[in-house]
Structures are given as structure tokens and as C-alpha cells.
């Protein structure tokens, strides 16, 4: 049988993480479920606002390459914002709170949150 060109021998000394395959730790946050849903993610999203905007800008750029017409794009964004209002509680309120804290259109945050459903084809 053919050997996968990228396969390698099993690694044995990778932990604790270091070296070229390790890019760093992730920051820790507390989400207080006692807060109203729209306020739960504010601190986290405020800290990550710039990174979130970069990622969403990339995704929209890819979408714009497929849909050149600005009118269609605006209609799609409106539709996605409407979709956000149909999501179940408390997720709808949390998503609205994230969009507001990050200063990103609601439709863009909705599409990020339903990635899974879109990409299972």
C-alpha cells in the first residue's frame, strides 16, 4: 500500500508542549451564567474584538468573491440578521450581545455561529 507522503513516526516527547508545532497557550475567561445573556460575553468579546473582525472580514471577502452584486450581499446580510432573531433563547440574546460589544453587524455574528450547519455538506 502507498505511504501517506506526510505521515511520520509516532511522536513520543511532545508534552509539555514546545517546539515548532506549539503556537502558545490560550487565555482563560469566566462566563457568568447569572448575568443576562446579552451581558455574558462582553468582556471576552471586547478583548477579542480586533481578532474577530479580522476573521469575519476574511470570510466576507470570500463571500463577496462569489456574490459580486452589492444589492444581493445587503439582502443576504439582512436575511442573516433576521435569522439571528429566530434562534432559541438564550443564544439569540447572547449573539446580539456579542454583535453589540464587538461592533460587528448582527448577521455576521450569526453566520459565524451557524458555521457548523453550513459546512456539513
Amino acid at each position, binding site marked *: 500500500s502507498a505511504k501517506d507522503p506526510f505521515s511520520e513516526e509516532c511522536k513520543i516527547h511532545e508534552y509539555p508542549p514546545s517546539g515548532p508545532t506549539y503556537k502558545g497557550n490560550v487565555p482563560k475567561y469566566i462566563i457568568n451564567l*447569572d448575568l443576562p445573556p446579552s451581558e455574558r460575553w462582553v468582556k*471576552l468579546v471586547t478583548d477579542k474584538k480586533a481578532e474577530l473582525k479580522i*476573521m469575519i472580514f476574511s470570510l466576507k471577502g470570500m463571500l463577496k468573491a462569489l456574490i459580486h452584486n452589492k444589492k444581493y450581499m445587503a439582502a443576504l446580510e439582512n436575511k442573516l440578521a433576521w435569522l439571528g432573531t429566530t434562534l432559541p433563547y438564550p443564544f439569540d440574546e447572547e449573539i446580539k450581545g456579542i454583535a453589540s460589544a464587538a461592533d460587528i453587524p448582527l448577521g455576521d455574528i450569526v453566520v459565524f455561529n451557524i458555521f457548523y450547519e453550513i459546512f456539513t455538506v
Partner: protein
Amino acid sequence: CTSIVAEDTTGKLYHARNLDFGLFLGWDIKNSSWTVTKELKPLMVSVDFQRNNKTVFKSSNLAGYVGMISGVKPGAFSLTLNERFSVDGGYIGLFEWIVGQRDGWWMSFLTRNVLENCTSYEDAKDRLVNSKLLAPAYFILGGMKSGEGCIITRSRSATLDIWPLDTKKGIWYLVETNYDRWKDPFVLDNRRDPAMKCLNQTMQENISLPTIYNVLSTKPVLNKLTVSTTLLEVSDGHIETYLRDCPDPCSPW
């Protein structure tokens, strides 16, 4: 994605996953990486969800994403979600939702709901097996006691398979990539066999979170789509997440 649940010789359970995402979503020639994969890395966070100042569950998550893809409920269960591709995919569920048929769960909202509200491995399993979904999925569930681990293969409306740990039959680990266990993986995306080979080499008596991290660090289990590696341990509600990179030569998926 690659998820692993394993049991050591004392009956202790370990759960870990590589989060792979961003296939065909732009290629960054300069950095030899998928654009969205690269941009998701700074969004990874470790979150402790609390009520009355007490931990309800912990997760490894993306900032701005309210659903859950990996999490642990201390003293109860651990859960990861892997994408399952199907012609009867999530876009159909999405369409049904738009036209008003709203009786299914959005995938990551269900996993969040399970982590928040279920109180035991069996409770979580029951919910994941019996809920109607908008998209197909693999749920990888780990528990506290020996034998409490399974992979649930779901279509949108039915549970197609529940594959449990069974150390008496020699099944001391389960590996899920993005393929049904009764089918061969796609020939250009076989991460399952390399992961199994490394777990077999590790052997049950040596299994631990560090040795599972070794397995998840071996190419092509680690690949250009890998955003992070998360290690979960139920008994003390432990979760650790590391951002990953896969320098060339490395499989693009």
C-alpha cells in the same frame, strides 16, 4: 477534527481532540497555511462557565461563538463534537429552519445545552442520542467510570450507531475523525489509521493526557487545518488547550 477517548488500566478516562477547521477557506501563500485556520487561532479561549460563582462546565471555545465544540462537566462527563459530512447535511436543516420548521437543535447549541444541564454521562448520552438535529454529527462522549465512553454517529433525525468503550473486548480507546467507523476514510484523508497506530504503540498501561497529546501531534493527525489541541479529564474537571502549527512538510488536511 480528531477526537480520542481512552481508558487506562486503572479505569481512568481521558478525552482529547484536535480542532481542524478552514478547509478551502483561502490559502495564505506567504505563510503556507489556510487563511481562516490561521485567523481562528487568536480567537481560541478557555472558558469556565459559572453559576453562583461555581463552575458548571468548562470549555475550549472560539471568541464570539456561543455554542460548544469541546467541554467538560467536572465529575460527570466530557464531550467533543466532530463534523460529519453528508448529502443530507446542515444546509437542509438550515433551509427547514428558514421556512419555519424549527423542531431541530442547532448542533453546537445542543452540546452547550447538554454541558449546561445534564448531570451525568447517561443523561448526556440520552440527550445526544434522542434529540432531533439540524445537521449530522459525531458526538464523542467520555465519563467518569470504566467503560463510560462512546462515539454517537448521528444523522439529522436518527442515531445511526453508538460505539462504546469495552476493555473486556480489548477496546480501550475510540478514535473519531470525520468518517463513519464502518466505512474506510477518504483515501486522501486517513488520520484514523495513524492515530490508531500511535495509540497501539503507546499501549493502555501508558495512556495519559501527555501521551495522547503525542498522538495528536503526529502528522497527519496534526495537519495544516489544526487550530488547537484540547485535553480533557473528567474527574477533576481539567481542561488544557494549546494552539498548534504544522510546519512544512505537512498534510494540507
